[in-house]
């Protein structure tokens, strides 16, 4: 490893990490603008300018990525760029931009500059996580992401819930990071390398009890990031306590990055000529987490009365579906997982946008706060209808298509032949259950009468963003091939 890292080509490093650099520079710029130029301006202006600068940075980075499709690797695969990685990165940048646009009006913080700067740092972490293929780089990038998210969760300083959520998130996160680092150290000890691509062969050679320990520890760390059972305990509290835009970020970009990492690590753990030792255990671990998440997530969501907690448990269930695709570990299933993660994240950003608006107007995220939304604000209700139906997997929305594509890829994978059918059947049965809790929200929105008839206030930008997301959810479902140039299908 040392040779590779030491002989690094800094010119190439810069070329590969231009998007990350853009984000870093702009986050510093935002701090300067906010703390320097706009010190005397009102909070609204400061928030708006910080968010817009953040959006511009994300857009610039995304445009750069779109314009420079390259396949490259740095320092013996410490960082790689492939079409799939670039697709995930563009998706993450887009999600960050949407989250920032939706927080233009947010009032939870008196420090807009710091907020947006840290969001951009978190995004940098996500981009690096997606591209990293070396255990050390992975760990550093993950910590950049996680630490930023802990801070962001606590950002509503006047809310005790926010602080509690951040503390829980931090304690669970710190623990799982420690476990993962411990696991990484075993992997390094066993294979003599920190590089995923050169690790495969030694790991699959012989059966090693230490490898079992290492894999379980790594699974614990990654399971925490994607909120898979049994490492999901932080999710409901954090989703509920964090400011709405932060929850949206945790549920979207961070999820996409973590699943991209899971794809890479799974590729690394399993030698292409699949052999029977360490990798078999890795698959078993993934499947156990998947099955647990699907069952527990869907069942626990049934009894929630807070919409944020409901979506947290539904996120656990969706992570379970995606883990099935990871465990199938074919090229197709990896692309299908990424497609699923991106479209799921897009839908979730929209849903949390609506939740944020409802909270601002009613002061609550309980199911009853949504009563009569269709009469208080029909367009807002319409967008939420599309998001939730898409999450439930109702065609012709994109959520259905993503599920179909993912499960078809799993069923076709020769590597998954002995478990695919029962688990996919269980996942589909569980998604039938999931319709119940999504309909609980939609019932409040469309069927029940509002307690308070007054119209719900939505800013023009918020509504535009939400409608655009809803249109994307509908149109991507009707024309699923639209993204195929970007993320290969089938």
């Amino acid at each position, binding site marked *: 490893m040392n040779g590779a890292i030491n002989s690094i080509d800094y010119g190439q490093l810069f070329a590969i990490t231009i998007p990350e650099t853009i984000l870093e520079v702009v986050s510093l710029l935002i701090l300067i603008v906010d703390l320097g130029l706009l010190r005397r301006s009102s909070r609204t202006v400061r928030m708006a300018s910080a968010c817009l600068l953040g959006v511009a940075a994300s857009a610039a980075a995304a445009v750069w990525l779109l314009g420079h499709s390259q396949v490259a690797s740095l320092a013996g695969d410490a960082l790689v760029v492939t079409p799939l990685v670039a697709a995930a990165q563009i998706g993450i940048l887009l999600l960050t931009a949407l989250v920032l646009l939706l927080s233009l009006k947010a009032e939870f913080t008196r420090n807009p500059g710091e907020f947006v700067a840290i969001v951009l740092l978190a995004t940098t972490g996500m981009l690096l996580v997606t591209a990293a293929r070396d255990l050390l780089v992975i760990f550093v990038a993950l910590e950049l992401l996680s630490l930023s998210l802990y801070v962001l969760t606590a950002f509503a300083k006047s809310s005790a819930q926010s602080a509690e959520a951040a503390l829980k998130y931090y304690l669970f996160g710190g623990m799982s990071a420690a476990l993962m680092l411990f696991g990484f150290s075993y992997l390094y000890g066993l294979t003599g390398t920190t590089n995923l691509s050169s690790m495969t062969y030694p790991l699959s050679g012989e059966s090693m009890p230490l490898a079992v320990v290492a894999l379980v520890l790594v699974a614990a760390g990654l399971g925490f990031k994607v909120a898979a059972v049994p490492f999901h305990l932080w999710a409901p509290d954090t989703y509920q306590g964090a400011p709405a835009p932060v929850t949206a970020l945790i549920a979207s970009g961070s999820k996409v990055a973590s699943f991209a990492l899971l794809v890479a690590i799974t590729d690394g753990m399993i030698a292409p000529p699949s052999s029977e030792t360490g990798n078999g255990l890795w698959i078993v671990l993934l499947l156990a987490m998947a099955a647990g998440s699907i069952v527990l997530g869907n069942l626990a969501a049934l009894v929630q009365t807070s919409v944020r907690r409901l979506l947290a448990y539904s996120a656990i269930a969706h992570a379970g579906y995606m883990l099935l695709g990871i465990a199938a570990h074919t090229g197709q299933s990896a692309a299908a997982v990424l497609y699923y993660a991106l479209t799921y994240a897009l839908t979730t950003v929209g849903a949390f946008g609506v939740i944020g608006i409802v909270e601002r107007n009613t002061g609550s995220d309980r199911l009853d706060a949504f009563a009569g939304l269709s009469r208080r604000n029909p367009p807002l209700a319409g967008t939420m209808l599309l998001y939730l139906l898409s999450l439930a997997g*109702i065609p012709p929305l994109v959520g259905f298509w993503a599920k179909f594509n993912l499960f*078809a890829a799993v069923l076709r994978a020769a590597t998954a032949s002995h478990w695919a059918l029962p688990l996919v059947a269980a996942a589909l049965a569980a998604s039938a259950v999931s319709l119940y809790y999504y309909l609980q929200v939609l019932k409040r929105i*469309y069927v029940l009468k509002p307690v308070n008839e007054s119209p719900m206030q939505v800013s023009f930008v918020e509504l535009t963003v939400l409608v655009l997301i809803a249109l994307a959810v509908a149109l991507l479902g009707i024309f699923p091939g639209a993204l195929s140039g970007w993320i290969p299908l*089938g």
Partner: protein
Amino acid sequence: MLAYTIYLSFAGALVLAMWPRAWAKSARVFALMIALAGLGVALAGFIAARGQGSVAVADASWVPALGIHYTLQADGISRVLVLLTGLAAVAGILFSWYIGTREGDRANEFFAFFLALIGGVYGVFLSVDLFLLFVFYEIAIVPKYFLIAIWGSTRREYGAMKLALYSFAGSAMVLIGLLAAYAVAGSHTMNLYELAKFPFPVSFQMWVFPLVFTGFAILAGMWPFHTWAPTGHVAAPTAASMLLAGVVMKLGAYGCLRVAMTLFPHGLDPWGFSFLGIDSWRTVFALFAVIGIVYGAVVALVQNDFKFVIGYSSVSHMGLVLLGLLTLTQIGIDGAVLQMFSHGVLAGLMFAIVGRIVYERTHTRDLGALSKLQLGKAMPFAAWLFVIAGMASMGLPGFSGFVAEVQVLIGAWKAFPWFAIVAGVGIVVGVAYTWRAMQRAFFSDMAVVDAEGVADPVPEYEPVTWAEKAGVILLAGTSLLIGLFPRLLLDEIIPAVQALPHALLTGGR
């Protein structure tokens, strides 16, 4: 041309979803125009394609990477059911004519959900690509939930949720089967007829067939998965009951025939052993169908809520459809398809009379309470049309029900003589419950007599509106027309059944 039935309905739904709330009163006019246009297209397509076998309607590449195409085709069976959908849509809107006359009716939303449901139903009947068929099938679920939960009556939220979950569970079973078939056949195509050519191993068909068949049959109201049907029908507003019984239950039966039985005909083969005389999935499902026929009829006989009588009669009549399909004989399947059409028209008619014309004026559906109101004198129009509907429904010659049921029974007699006898008993019970409901609701003449022996006068009700008359006459006239000239439909159905895969018509051996 037939594809425009789908586009018109969805476009109408989209327009109505954005319809300004201030114009809510005109939503019904727009919806009726869309439904009439759909019926017109369905009828024109039916006439234009007479005697032509299966006609291509649309074909475009959709997701080439996965072999999914936007393929619509209409054979005789599809054309008959598309025509039924057009009729049900127009009649349903005529019977929803009151929606939009009062404040807070949310008429634009009602008709938007209504047309979205109709569009999904048209789509299912026309799709040949299974992915597309499934998409349309699921599109039909969500509007049903909202139609019942928002505009329904008795225990509407419960009924709506039960219906949505049963439908969704059924469609999850179907999706498992379709995904498995797609993967096993090499993932090149989702076209029904291409996929049907693939020789699926018999052991594979033996577990996929019951899964997919049951998934669809849930929506067809097959015993013991029928319990959503009576509660859903009773909870639904009139137009939604008409659609549920009229076309949505047909989606299930259509799926059983077109998907489950066509793709996996060897799932109907004998198992090779016999347990209590049951030796194949075919016998199992035929047994369920027969139990449904008798059980639905017997339960309908003791109901006091008029809508429950009709709800359970739907379970019974749909049992006949399933029995007809499972006979695997030409005549039995002909009868089953004709019964789908006939029951679609008649169930719509009965729900319209009971749920709308009678209930709206008397505010009760309790047969005991209705028997004191002398409805035969107070509402002669409703009474006589219910007599016509009842006679048609119990299978009197001259109406559509007779032609259909006779064919089903002949087919069943060839395939399972014992079941045919039991089903015949069920039909006789059907006469009894129809007679009982008709007599108690309209002709009991048990006017309340006060202490001096003076009977209450015949109550006066608002006259039947033109929209109600038009809807009732449309449905009753259709039933009579098909009863007198069954060849109008059979000329389309028979060649289409003959063209079904050979393995299906010789299945079970």
